């Protein structure tokens, strides 16, 4: 085990852990934001630079500071390391700089973006950004394209996190999209005329931190905070079948994987990641396709939690109504405490 401190809070983690993972164990404000890192995807992280931290002391053996800010998602901890995140004004200033740069070419089209409300860039900008933009030139523009009949790509909103590329590499049986061009002209694209067509391709939507890859079957149906998330499952031969339904009344508007407080797809009981297949995601849009488990815990970042949980009772009522007043098996505990967003902040 390795001992270190992050913002003066001591933490002990196994050797090989990254600073970001150690900070997630502490939780709360100490945890740096991460736009490109995704713990379930190998070799992810290091690109967006939002998780930068200051290493004031490299280790006990070599107490020199690391001269430049490091990407906490790709830097391993060392015994006696002293890390500063929110206790270093210099670091917060550097992060604000990264956020400003991430936004200079972003269209800021949140009012018409399906991701609004669950967008990590929105949260990031809200928490770390400046009130006004200093960028006064034309923004980079790409035409939105349909990659296949289920997925929409808005390249204008992309922050080049490479997560979708890694999903295609690591969990589908063949990648047919990638990055073309260079610098600020770089874009995610498929091979000419080729759509993303694979049983697990829909997961690129779940990992996209912004509104670049969205679900065409959910397009403009509703703002996410007007939908009510419930966890549900079905017997699926292709995937784990454990999903989150986003409902309005009894209508299933959208199906996604279940995500944890960091916005990442959760693990199954056996430790594998609960990616879902396209059949569950796109084709099972009837409430009768699913066994409802109960309301979903919502990620601490999301405006959905800020805006919605005063109506938790309504979800409870809706859920019970859907279940015909009788939950499957044991009675579902819809105790408010466990789902209180304020509780999650305290973690």
């Amino acid at each position: 085990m390795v001992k270190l401190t992050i913002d003066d809070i001591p933490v002990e983690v196994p050797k090989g852990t990254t600073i970001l993972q150690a900070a997630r164990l502490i939780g709360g404000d100490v945890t740096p934001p991460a736009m490109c890192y995704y713990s379930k995807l190998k070799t992810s992280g290091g690109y967006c630079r939002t998780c930068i931290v200051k290493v004031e002391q490299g280790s006990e053996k070599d107490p020199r500071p690391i001269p430049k800010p490091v990407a906490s998602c790709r830097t391993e901890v060392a015994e006696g390391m002293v890390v500063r995140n929110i206790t270093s004004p210099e670091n917060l200033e550097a992060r604000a700089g990264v956020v400003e740069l991430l936004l200079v070419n972003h269209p800021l089209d949140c009012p018409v973006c399906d991701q609004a409300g669950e967008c990590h860039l929105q949260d990031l900008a809200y928490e770390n950004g400046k009130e006004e933009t200093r960028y006064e030139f034309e923004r980079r523009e790409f035409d939105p394209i349909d990659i296949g009949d289920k997925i929409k790509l808005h390249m204008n909103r992309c922050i080049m996190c490479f997560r979708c590329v890694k999903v295609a590499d690591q969990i589908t049986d063949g990648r047919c999209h990638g990055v073309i061009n260079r610098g600020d002209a770089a874009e995610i694209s498929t091979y000419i005329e080729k759509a993303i067509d694979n049983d697990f391709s829909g997961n690129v939507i779940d990992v996209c931190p912004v509104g670049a890859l969205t679900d065409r079957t959910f397009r403009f149906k509703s703002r996410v905070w007007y939908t009510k998330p419930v966890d549900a499952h079905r017997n699926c031969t292709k995937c784990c079948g454990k999903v989150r339904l986003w409902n309005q009344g009894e209508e299933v508007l959208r199906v996604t994987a279940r995500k944890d407080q960091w916005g990442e797809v959760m693990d199954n009981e056996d430790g594998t990641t609960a990616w879902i297949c396209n059949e569950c995601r796109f084709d099972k849009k009837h409430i009768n396709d699913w066994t409802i488990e109960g309301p979903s815990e919502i990620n601490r970042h999301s405006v959905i939690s800020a805006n919605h949980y005063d109506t938790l009772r309504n979800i409870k009522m809706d859920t019970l109504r859907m279940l015909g007043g009788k939950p499957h098996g044991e009675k579902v505990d819809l105790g408010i405490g466990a789902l209180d967003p304020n509780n999650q902040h305290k973690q």
Partner: protein
Amino acid sequence: MSRKLLLKNDHIPGIATLKTYRENGGYTAMEKALKTMSPDALLEEVKTSGLRGRGGAGFPTGMKWSFLAKPEGVPRYLVVNADESEPGTFKDRYLMEHIPHLLIEGMIISSFTLGSNSAYIYIRGEYFYVSRILEQAIDEAYAAGLLGKNILGTGYDLDIYVQVGAGAYICGEETALLESLEGKRGNPRIKPPFPAIAGLYGCPTVVNNVETIAAVVPIIEMGGAEYAKIGIGRSTGTKLISASGHINKPGVYEIELGLPVEEFIYSEEYCGGIKGGRKLKAVVAGGSSVPILPTELILKTAAGEPRLMSYESLGEGGFVSGTMLGSGGFIVMDEDTSIVKNLYTFSRFYHHESCGQCSPCREGTGWMEKILHKILEGKGTLKDIDLLWDIQSKIEGKTICPLGEAAAWPVAAAIRHFRPEFEAYVTNPESIKDVKHYYRLNPTV
């Protein structure tokens, strides 16, 4: 005449051929190394010589080599970085074009020292014709038994491959180079691990500049201790300088490190003074990414000492009043040069060459170029100058690879030393109308 080690024979006709190269003492150092010395002894010689990387960073070569991991049963590689793309730098091209066998001899000695049986030359796409010269020299060396199996009967095997890049500046960054060499998109890797542990195909790899590897030949020829006597302080040996700009005699010069900058610019042996007898305005001493210095700071340090062509002397004063030796791309600007336009050209280059992998460089380089364009159009404000300064500070040190710094440093230095000129563009464009514009403004950004 100062001492020449690398270019002592470049005037001999036919030196590019194996026959003439050998007639002039070529491949004797390699024979000495392979037949009479052990890899450990060779490494010691290189360490003793004090040789520092000639690609720009100036890292001690012997130390870099000693970091190479040597796990059992895993191949090790030597990769020569011939992706010379730093604007203002063209020394490696000259060396490879005129004396290709010097590089090959250096590669054989270095590979033997490192215990590598495969070595690569990664050369930039624009140097396609140079790659043919290298291929030809390699073929000659194979035919003469200097490469391949059992070299000169010593039992040592070595194959050398030439790989032509596609012309991307970023592929000169060592890990982007390795990615490209592996056939992937040339994006820099996130370090650690460093190439010495996991480099080409995940195996321990040493990546060195062309000139560094070539310098190994005279080091073994004369001995590391003798080599260390040349130069000044920790800047040992000789260095190739690519001199360009408003000088009478642009070209590649081999200098002994420690030569006064003033002598280099004005003596007949080297640059031969400023063209047309005009005054010196500024110098970019080590390739476009190093900080530009005005006349008073390039000829003398802030402390009033004469500035010397060495890693230490050029670096004196940090970035406040100093610069870097870098790759030795020495760009001289006369009094008529517009620093703002020059900076715009540099910024346009870095914007174009950013790989797009990490956010600060991808977004920041384009922003800086656009602001400079605006200032040059006469639409800038004083606030824009401060904004430029702020953006460069938000890029520097926040990126995966040094391209971020390379893009930020020239902006910082130009504003630091020539701020009144930027202000003149903003407040009184008339006052600068006499400045000749050597760089044409790109109509579209």
